């Protein structure tokens, strides 16, 4: 009898000890992670790129030991939590609301289009979740509190808006580069003393109209020798563009600035050159810095222009920024040879920016992290910055960055059957010794406009 009691007590002690040991090892308690909410439309190539880039950054950070959170006294791993916004045209707020309320994400990164982001940032604003917006070229996404109160997009919540950060170039950034490139490089190449005749062909949405308006403002403000001879819009769901291109052709432009996305810009250029006979110089914007754009254009894109902020297909022996080279190599190695796009690069940086903010704040508390994001002062990463640092503006510039963009000219290499980009403007960039790769040249069959 005593032996039985002793045996039973021993068993109980062993079981309790084992339970306590396993508890200490967090077997029963799920390991705490930092939940990174990634806002990406998985029906789009841009969204898939954002998701892949975020995953790459998270995996790198975890492999290096995670994020040190001082008030917990330990490192935590990051975990990607996807808010799939589909094709970005529907209800983008619902998936974001879900990951905020159901999965308690600590931060949001991503957001490709302005239209989608203006919807999906609302739950972030309401719930005070820091959102590093890595797309959306309209700076409205951080300036909604400054709109007139009767504007449908006005947000009367300064505290909530303070959680929004815009790590992306804006229409103003890249339209400035385009306008000055036209004035400094294209007009002299045409060799005419008159003003350069520019046609703007734009998507009939907030983004396209924004490009149209900002381009006009920049030309006026900087007194550039450019006349806008046509502003022609096309429906956002258009897949053919012959009619608007004929209108553009009527205006006899020297160059056509296309404010569209990847598929429409590529198709505009192909139809313009092949179908309508508008053998002009076409300028696409940085959202087209994606391998699919080059594939879609093919040989038709020879000598055409792309404004960009990250040269993921840099043609040179050494990368202009070592970090860009590493990113491209790691991304292609991890994702079956896929070349990264522009929005993914922003998102990759955003994850590291958040990591820095948490480590500076020493906590996951969202208000403290928000404050730390505001005080971000990091070396530039994948985007070239004016002061070679990642900082967010305060005051009237509302958590925006100071990026530098550049112009690439695409050249068709018949041996390889590929369209490859070469930087033609500007001559130099802050901190980069050798950046410009070639002089701009007009396309061989270029036909200038005329008054």
């Amino acid at each position: 009898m005593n032996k039985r009691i002793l045996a039973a007590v021993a068993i109980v002690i062993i079981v309790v000890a084992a339970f306590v040991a396993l508890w200490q090892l967090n077997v029963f308690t799920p390991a705490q992670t930092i939940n990174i909410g990634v806002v990406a439309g998985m029906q789009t190539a841009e969204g898939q790129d954002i998701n892949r880039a975020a995953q790459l950054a998270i995996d790198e950070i975890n492999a290096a030991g995670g994020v040190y959170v001082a008030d917990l006294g330990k490192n935590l791993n990051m975990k990607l939590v996807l808010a799939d916004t589909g094709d970005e045209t529907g209800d983008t707020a619902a998936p974001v609301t879900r990951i905020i309320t159901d999965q308690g994400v600590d931060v949001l990164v991503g957001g490709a289009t302005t239209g989608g982001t203006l919807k999906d940032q609302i739950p972030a604003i309401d719930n005070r979740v820091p959102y590093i917006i890595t797309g959306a070229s309209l700076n409205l996404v951080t300036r909604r509190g400054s709109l007139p109160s009767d504007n449908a997009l006005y947000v009367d919540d300064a505290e909530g808006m303070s959680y929004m950060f815009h790590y992306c170039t804006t229409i103003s950034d890249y339209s400035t580069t385009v306008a000055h490139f036209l004035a400094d490089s294209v007009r002299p190449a045409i060799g005419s003393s008159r003003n350069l005749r520019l046609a703007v062909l734009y998507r009939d949405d907030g983004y396209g109209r924004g490009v149209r308006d900002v381009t006009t403002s920049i030309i006026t403000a900087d007194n550039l020798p450019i006349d806008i001879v046509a502003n022609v819009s096309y429906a956002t769901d258009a897949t053919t563009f012959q009619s608007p291109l004929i209108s553009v052709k009527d205006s006899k432009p020297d160059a056509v600035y296309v404010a569209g996305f990847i598929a429409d810009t590529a198709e505009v250029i192909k139809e313009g050159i092949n179908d309508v006979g508008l053998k002009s110089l076409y300028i696409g914007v940085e959202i087209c810095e994606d391998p699919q754009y080059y594939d879609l254009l093919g040989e038709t894109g020879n000598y055409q222009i792309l404004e960009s902020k990250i040269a993921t297909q840099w043609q040179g022996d050494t990368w202009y920024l070592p970090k860009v080279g590493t990113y491209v190599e790691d991304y292609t190695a991890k994702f079956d040879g896929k070349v990264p796009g522009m929005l993914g690069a922003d998102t990759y940086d955003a994850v590291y920016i958040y990591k820095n903010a948490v480590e500076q704040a020493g906590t996951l508390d969202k208000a403290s992290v928000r404050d730390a994001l505001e005080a971000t002062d990091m070396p530039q990463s994948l985007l070239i910055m004016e002061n070679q640092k990642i900082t967010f503006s305060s005051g009237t510039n509302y958590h925006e960055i100071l990026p530098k963009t550049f112009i690439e000219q695409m050249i068709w290499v018949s041996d390889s059957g590929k369209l490859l980009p070469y930087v033609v403007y500007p001559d130099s960039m802050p901190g980069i010794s050798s950046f410009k790769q070639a002089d701009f040249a007009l396309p061989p069959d270029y036909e200038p406009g005329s008054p």
Partner: protein
Amino acid sequence: MITAGLAQALLFGVANGCIYILLATGLNLIFGVMKLVNFAHGQLLMVGAFVAYEVTTVVGLNPYVSILVSMGSVALIGIVLEKFAFRKIRGTDKLNEIFISLGLIYVFQYSATLLWENSYTIRIPSPLAGLSVPLGEVSLSYDIILAMIIVVVILIGLVFLTKKTKIGLAMRATSQKSDASMLMGININRVYLFTFAVGAALAGAAGAIYGILFPFNPAIGALPTIKAFAIIILGGLGSIPGAVVGGLLYGVAENVTGYLTNSTWQNAVAFALLIAVLIIRPTGLFGEKGE
């Protein structure tokens, strides 16, 4: 006065109209003979485009030869649809065929999305891309010229089929009086099967030509279906000449509107044209009373 821009818009309108003609003629044939409303007809255009794309890019066939492959493939699909879907519900409530065709829209579209995962539009590469005929200040690409010629050839073949062959005679008889045709010994099942196959083949041809001239993706089938129905109503239900004229009018109205105003208005004006014609002539341009 016709400016160069307007002339170019008119020419493109005629080119677009050629695609609508094929699509609407096929739909008209099916409706005229079988009295069948097939809302998935535009999906056959989409399938035709993808078949032509695959045959051109994977097998290396000339895209204009691939039109024949598209026609054959989509005709076979049409045969399967008629025999195993629409025939089963023939004679039952009209709603059944409407729901079957609506369901087929999603089946085709999502199947295509699964097979061709592209989120971007693609185009069938043409060896004539970039080549055009200058006509003063206007230019017309070789692809568009060839597309127009092919449509004319197909229509001539269709007229020959319906007017000069036994099966064509059977189709015409069935379209007028199906019961009497049966009594006269015409195999209605065979006529319907053949009609649906021809209608589908025309949609396949429209798709292949569309894919050479314009970019496409799995979602392109919806709007052409609506336009095709509008065209056959505009031209007159069951009237092939009506489908031809209606298709041309539609294509020109769309393109000229897009050129003169804003491409956002293209679709709206084309349907406004339909409304205007129906108010003036409710049976359509070539339609007959009682249809």
